[in-house]
């Protein structure tokens, strides 16, 4: 399992209800179900991945988060997970509002556009950054709304979203983000992982 999912699964307590948005082939769901006895559901837009999940016995619904989240009742899950997808929505703010409505707590991870390699790429090459986490060209990237760790924290503050936990990931290493190290983490982290409500 990838490191990011390890971090996310550690945040999630056992025996809780979890909704995984964009659950892919269900590897996080499977881990949570088996090892943490979580009651897990998933939402995934790609048919072949949905079929993969169903064949593993995972309850996954085929659908697009921007259209489907509205059907889930308020606070119907203990955790809603959105891994590295927020930036790909047409309306990330609305998606985030839905996540906060459905979940008692929400876990969001974002690829950090403030990572130093990204900054240097744009600064020196003068072209849109391509890194391990952002492998696409500007014309075929699914990412419509890139942001940095700082941007996301600013956004939460502005919208009165409470951040319960903020972690970051660099080369498989996990560390905590605090007010004091924020500037540093915003340069040296590839990924930000937040527990919000």
């Amino acid at each position, binding site marked *: 399992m990838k490191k990011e999912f390890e971090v996310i699964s550690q945040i999630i307590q056992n025996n809780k209800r979890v909704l995984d948005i964009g659950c892919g082939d269900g590897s996080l769901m499977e881990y949570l179900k088996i090892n943490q006895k979580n009651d897990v*559901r998933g939402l995934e837009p790609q*048919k072949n991945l*949905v079929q993969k999940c*169903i*064949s593993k*016995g995972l*309850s996954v*619904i085929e659908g697009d988060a921007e259209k489907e989240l509205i059907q889930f*009742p308020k606070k119907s899950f203990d955790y809603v997970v959105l891994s590295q997808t927020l930036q790909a929505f047409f309306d990330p703010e609305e998606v985030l509002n839905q996540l906060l409505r459905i979940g008692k707590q929400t876990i969001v991870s974002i690829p950090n556009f403030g990572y130093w390699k990204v900054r240097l790429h744009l600064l020196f090459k003068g072209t849109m950054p391509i890194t391990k986490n952002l492998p696409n060209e500007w014309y075929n990237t699914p990412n419509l709304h890139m942001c940095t760790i700082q941007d996301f924290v600013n956004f939460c503050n502005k919208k009165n979203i409470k951040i319960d936990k903020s972690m970051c990931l660099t080369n498989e290493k996990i560390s905590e983000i605090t007010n004091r190290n924020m500037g540093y983490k915003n340069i040296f982290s590839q990924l930000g992982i937040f527990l919000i409500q």
Partner: protein
Amino acid sequence: MNSETKNIKKLIIDQSLELDCGKTIKDFPLAYETYGTLNKNKNNAILAFHALTGDQFCTNINPITKREGWWTTAVGPGKAIDTNKYFVICANVLGGCMGSYGPKEINPATNKLFATTFPVITIRDMVKAQKYLIDYLGIKKLLAVTGGSMGGMQVLQFVSLYPDKAHAAIPIACSASHSAQNIALNELGRQAIMADPNWKNENSTPDKGLAVARMAAHITYLSKKGLQEKFGRKLQDKGSLKFSFDADFQIESYLRYQGATFVDRFDANSYLYITRAMDYFDLEKQFKGNLSSAFNNTKSKFCVISFSSDWLYPTAENKEIVIALNTCGANVGFVEINSDKGHDSFLLDVPEFLKTVSEFLNSIYNEINNEKRI
């Protein structure tokens, strides 16, 4: 009481069943068939519900019609619903014409066919009757209930009536309440039958009317693209148009054939009664306009399946079911299968569909047998 005549197994249900129309019936026959073996723990049974023109012979050669069973693609040894592993039960619905209590049976009170004196039945009546069969077979909890089209409606009705009687439910290409378009199409079929001068003629059958009903319905089971690809404007006899009303086009000839063969195996009055039952089906209304309360207490795990080219029971209608299930926190998965074969996809060899059913059932089977923890 169980009896078998002319290859048709019948359970005579000696309990009384109050139909939705208000009438109570008792000592009525329910024709059924089973495939595979019920295991010692009686936890490998799957109840398959048939659609409008199906019957209890879901696989192998139907001993009455001598044709392949309606779900031979899915049910059988090594198939998606594997009869080496599962015990598959299929019953002819109330109102049907393959041995169950229906308009083609003799009314003991008059010694004549019931025909149109048969009571109007509903999907709920059909499901309640089949529950007696499950009890008779000594099955406390089914592994799964499944079916497509009207079979899917019975799945929804079953889990709603009996929230803890099936580990899994697979409603396929169906709807929780029959749409205006579907009622209209059924009415077209019924009117074709009733317009036939032989309808209600004791010495004859309205074959022409029933054939037309079948032809019209058959179009709705296919997709525009599927029809175009299969038939296009191809002519029946090579050469040119005949400037007549014979079957010039292959599609005409195909439909005529479908109509003509259908009347040999199906009863026109059964067609009236069963289409009526479909039209009356409105699970949402049964629960005062709130579909999700139909599933409030359900313990079943759902896998809802629709097909991309199905315009009779489109994905949107199947999704209504998913939304209702989500609203009450039920355990539900959903996938729309890509297929250009229209509504009929669930009866045909559509590998992605069959694979989904097979693997979902397998995961449920493993889950309850604790062979694997997921």
